[in-house]
């Protein structure tokens, strides 16, 4: 076995203008073979970070190393990193095979083995028959696959993917997500995936790094990020959420103005602290009967009902506090706007974010 190939960023900072950091003090270690997503809104620094890894931007401070080798002085063309660009950046004057063969040509791979590799790479993405097509003659999804084959054909240490599925429609996107996962599994290559789509990040990643305003707010597995976010931003950016502000009491109770005490999983937080509590809409159960008030039961007035087919979103209100409840369609009680109904939650599912 060769040495572990992995990516490591140490307090990487990038500022384009003095005093304004586009990316600030990013610390990150990626294990070999890991699939990690950079998730965040536009302008959060995720693409800038990716560009620094690829070598198209230089960190103002900090270090980046790949497989233990410090690469800040290495030019992009010597980094041996595969990259799938936004909108693919396929060379328009070369056909699919020439595009995929380009990195091999740059590396002086002889013609015959290069042809075999190109063929195998195109076959891997299911485009064996499209070798002679120009990019303009391929559909968006096919171009995407060519770009992927091109980024993988030279067996790079690391593959960067910059919003690769952004331009595809929903069905195709989901299909490509599965295919990317399969390729990742088969090749075992380290992948860094930039996206602003939280469901995509959830579906594909081993770990997610959530970016906001140039910083990583949290790094964790999809379920860590989803169920135990460290900040309000992570809680609201990843998934649908009810974020309520309150003050802690004894025994994991949190007082929320107008709602009353709510039982949570945070027994360890000392009383008297201002906190936010996160209640995921799908963790709330709903019934048509009004519930008696308790720390794990309450009642709300239904303001709007939105049917998504597989689930129903109930927008309710309790004394000025809006609450979102998501119910599987099969379990939806008979409710109408204006009805009062009972809700119930499991205290262990309620996460407390300390300020």
């Amino acid at each position, binding site marked *: 076995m060769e040495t572990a190939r992995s990516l490591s960023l140490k307090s990487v900072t990038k500022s384009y203008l003095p005093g304004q950091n586009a990316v600030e003090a990013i610390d990150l270690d990626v294990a070999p073979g890991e699939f990690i997503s950079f998730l965040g809104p536009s302008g959060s620094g995720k693409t800038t970070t990716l560009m620094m890894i690829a*070598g198209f931007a230089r960190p103002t401070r900090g270090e980046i190393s790949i497989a233990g080798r410090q690469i800040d002085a290495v030019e992009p063309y*010597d980094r041996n990193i595969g*990259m799938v*660009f936004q909108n693919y*950046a396929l060379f328009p004057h070369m056909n699919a095979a020439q595009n995929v063969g380009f990195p091999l040509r740059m590396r002086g791979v002889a013609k015959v083995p290069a042809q075999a590799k190109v063929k195998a790479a195109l076959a891997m993405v299911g485009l064996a028959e499209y070798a002679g097509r120009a990019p303009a003659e391929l559909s968006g999804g096919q171009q995407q696959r060519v770009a992927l084959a091109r980024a993988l054909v030279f067996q790079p240490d690391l593959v960067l993917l910059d919003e690769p599925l952004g331009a595809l429609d929903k069905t195709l996107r989901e299909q490509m997500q599965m295919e990317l996962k399969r390729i990742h599994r088969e090749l075992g290559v380290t992948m860094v995936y930039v996206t602003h789509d939280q469901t995509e990040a959830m579906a594909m990643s081993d770990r997610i790094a959530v970016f906001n305003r140039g910083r990583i707010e949290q790094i964790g597995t999809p379920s860590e990020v989803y169920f135990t976010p460290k900040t309000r931003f992570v809680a609201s950016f990843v998934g649908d959420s009810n974020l309520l502000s309150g003050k802690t009491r004894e025994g994991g109770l949190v007082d929320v103005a107008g709602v009353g005490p709510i039982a949570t999983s945070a027994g360890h937080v000392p009383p008297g602290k201002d906190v936010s509590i996160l209640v995921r809409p799908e963790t709330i159960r709903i019934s048509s009967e009004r519930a008696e008030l308790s720390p794990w039961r309450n009642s709300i007035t239904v303001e709007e009902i939105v049917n998504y087919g597989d689930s129903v979103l109930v927008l309710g209100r309790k004394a000025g506090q809006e609450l979102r409840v998501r119910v599987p369609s099969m379990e939806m009680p008979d409710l109408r706007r204006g009805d009062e109904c009972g809700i119930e939650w499991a205290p262990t599912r309620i996460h407390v974010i300390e300020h």
Partner: protein
Amino acid sequence: MSRSTVIIAVIVAILLAGPMFIVVPMSFSTAPSLEFPPPGYWLGYYRRFFSDPNWTGPVLNSFLIGLGTMVLAMLLGAPASFALVRYRFRLRALFRLIVMMPLIVPHIVMALGYYSYFGSLGLVQSMTGVILAHACLSIPVVVLTLTSALVNFDRRLENAAANLGARPLTTFRLVTFPILRPAFFVAALFAFIHSFDEAVIAIFISGRDSATLPRQMFNSFQMEADPAISAASSLLLAAVLAALGAQFAARLVRKQRPAHS
């Protein structure tokens, strides 16, 4: 859109192009001066045009000057275009102004300037002088053409090439230039035509031995209207028609090539 608007536009267009074609019957005319309709037809003026060194010389000169201008303007204008589009340097605004200025200054003013300036350099009445002057006028044409192509060039393609292992010069050779080749071609063509068509500066500085075709035409209009000029005019018109026709045909061919699913 109403039918009458379309008809008006078509009529204007016909009035626009129609009058030019009067040079064609004139070129076959037997009349020694500007007489229309022609009293008779023959090919004599074409024979004259192709055999008289007063015409063949200028045609050759115009081609040589046009080619020289094209090469010089491309060598200077192409790097300038890259500098303007891709770099923010001090005095960039001034540089842009200087590059564009030849389009602003009326040619007659420059003709006067070159007449005196090249006189003191010993370049007046020489082909070199005309090439140098025309190169100045063609640089902005080249720069306008190339910068508009460069602005639209997706630099991610260069990033992609670098990412895949191509060094800067290789990237330029294999990616940047091939994609911009049509723009380079058009820029070079424009530079050539700009020189080939330029009359005013050529009239004042090209002299007899390095006379260009426009100068020769201008002089012959002013002097005695050598009827071979109608042959020259017809040939120039035919050249433009042929070039546009070729372009149109090329577009048709491209359209008809079957598009893939």
